[in-house]
């Protein structure tokens, strides 16, 4: 017979389960508890989303006059708008490359700390600090670093005798997007590192210990044990990172404003420009861009989640 001992006694002394079960709370209690949050959510999330869908099939004229145009905004967007396609290309490159770099980099940093590298606490602090900084601060710092004349990047190149490699990093369409990407990765690497580190410390010690007893090498342990067990974390970080980068706005806006020659234009910066910079009050066209992009992101997320979903649950 199983010995339930102390647990049984505690359970018997607790109130009956029905009294604590949130699913059995009265309707009034639920309304009181959930109501304020739901009202705020509806006002600031659901309504704007529905309104954006509505706007996307209208031309919005001043004084709330709306003219239904069906899919005309989408046709214009897909057929004639070269800036949109440029923005789509840039965002795709950003989302794919930076996501891989973010996740892989975060994992490597976490492994370095997990494996007991010296100065673990200091390194963890240094690598995590950029996460705590606002995009504005990060953007301004890196614009200075990339400055042609006095920026740190070119100063280092010159001091190493590599002056021929100096660049106007943010001023050249060939390097601008990559330069912004480096900044973004620098900012978020620490976040991924911390998540991976937490996941690594949560791995069952007996599995890792058994592998060591079996003379499993460090690399084999990493490939055959650690990474498979980290798979849910990797999937979650990849999806979150991908979503974030598909919507990248602030850093690009601060560092380049989408230039030069639209080489760093992202879909989000383009939506903002069409809504607020193009001498028009029509929110229909920018809404169409936002709706289309929302659907594309959604499709990618579904595909990505299915692709990376683990078919067989690990047991340990």
């Amino acid at each position, binding site marked *: 017979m199983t010995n339930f001992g102390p647990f049984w006694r505690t359970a018997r002394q607790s109130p009956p389960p029905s009294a604590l079960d949130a699913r059995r709370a009265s309707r*009034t209690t639920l309304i009181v508890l959930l109501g304020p949050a739901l009202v705020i959510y509806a006002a600031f999330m659901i309504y704007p989303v529905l309104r954006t869908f509505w706007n996307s099939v209208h031309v919005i004229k001043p004084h709330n006059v709306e003219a239904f145009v069906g899919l005309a905004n989408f046709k214009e967007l897909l057929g004639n708008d070269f800036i949109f396609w440029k923005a789509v290309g840039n965002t795709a490159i950003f989302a794919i490359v930076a996501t891989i770099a973010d996740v892989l980099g975060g994992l490597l940093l976490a492994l370095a700390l997990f494996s007991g590298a010296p100065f673990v606490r200091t390194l963890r602090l240094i690598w995590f600090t950029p996460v705590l900084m606002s995009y504005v601060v990060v953007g301004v710092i890196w614009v200075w670093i990339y400055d042609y004349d006095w920026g740190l990047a070119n100063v280092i190149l010159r001091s190493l005798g590599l002056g021929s490699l100096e660049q*106007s990093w943010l001023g050249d369409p060939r390097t601008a997007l990559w330069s912004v990407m480096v900044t973004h990765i620098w900012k978020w690497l620490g976040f991924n590192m911390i998540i991976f580190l937490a996941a690594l410390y949560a791995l069952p010690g007996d599995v890792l210990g058994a592998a060591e007893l079996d003379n499993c090498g460090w690399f084999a342990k990493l490939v055959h044990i650690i990474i498979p067990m980290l798979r849910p974390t990797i999937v979650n970080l990849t999806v979150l990172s991908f979503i974030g980068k598909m919507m990248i706005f602030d850093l690009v806006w601060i560092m380049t*404003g989408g*230039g030069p020659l639209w080489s760093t234009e992202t879909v989000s910066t383009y939506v903002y420009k069409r809504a607020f910079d193009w001498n028009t*009050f029509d929110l229909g066209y920018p809404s169409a861009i936002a709706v289309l992009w929302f659907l594309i992101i959604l499709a990618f997320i579904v595909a990505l989640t299915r692709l990376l979903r683990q078919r067989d649950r690990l047991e340990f």
Partner: protein
Amino acid sequence: MITWRFAAALLLVIAFGLAASPPAQAEDVTLNVWTHEADEDAKVAFRELAAKNLEAAHPGVHVKITWYEKNPLLAALKTALPAGQGPDVLYVEPDWTEYVEAGYLAPLDDLIDWNNIEPWARAVWTFNGKTYGVPQEAYTNEIYYNKDLLKKLGVELPANAQFTQSQFLDLVKKAKAAGITPIAQGVGDRPFPGAYILGEALLRKLGKEDYRKLWTGGLSFEDPRVVDVFKWTKELVDAGAYPKNFMTLKLGESHYYFYAKPGALMLPMGSWYTGRAFVPEDKGGQPKDFPLGVMQYPAMDGGACNQCKTSAVGASFAINSASKHKDIAAEFINAMSTPEMGKRWIETVYLQTGIKADVKSFSGPYAAYFTELMERQKGADYFIGGPRDLTRGECKDSFAQVMNSAFPGGLLSVDQAIKMMNAACFKG
């Protein structure tokens, strides 16, 4: 039960609070003003003085000024005005024509004392016979230069202060050879400074009528005269006219680059430059003894109007058509537009204005500068407004990306730039 009791108590508290608050006086009015340029102390002091004067003249009126940076102001206005909200008085610039077309600005013809405003400045804000804005700031496009560096290069400014296009190119090459940056300019945070040289050259080459057509889609960028100007500008770019960090240098940094470190020969800029430069050195201003000179933009070979010059209106004020206090809003704008305030503007902001100001002679530390600036206006044939006032949508965006940035930044050939501008702007 507890919930109902709580709600009833809350209602009682609110009701008591409402009853206890003092009744609003009939004359109590808060006039909301949204404006840009919080970073320019002299303009802040100017507008706050006008608010104080209005409050003194109208007891019970309180002026609440909210200061914005330009982009957040635009975003706030574009959401507030369509919702029937927003300020009573708002900062506007002449290229924000969508506010007029949308009917968000009240016609000011019967509200403002137009005797105090220059007719040419009022004309900038006149659409279909009605006036929608009161111009406060006016400026002309000039090339500022360092007199000492020009002398060092052994070059003398012509009597009319205008080089020919080949002399100007030679000057750029000479400065570059001497290790001096010829033109301090950057487009890191503005969509227009990189196009000063190119735009003014186009104005002189084409004359006022064709220049306007170019920006409004009536003249192709493939016109041989336009191509000639692009080719000349390309020669300047290839000669190293602009700094290497042109693409990322910000407006304020380009000023500092010109008069401090590392120093440059010329700075093409609107004459509002001095509003930022004539502040104490410890606030980033130009050194008191800086040898500042003003020259004309170069004359183009075969130019249709080499005496032409861009004059534009900048900071202006308008009244929200949904305002319930239009009369008091107009009073506030009138309070900023008296001849005394116009004089004060010139003497404290160091800038031209659309307000009629009785300033016959200049005094003070910058008197010589103002005398020289006025000298450069003699015989000028003004074109009112710039490319950003005349273009919209894709053409405006292409102006910022191509003519302001990529072309002077050396990223595009003449053919590529012409093709891109034509695709975005020409309606033929």
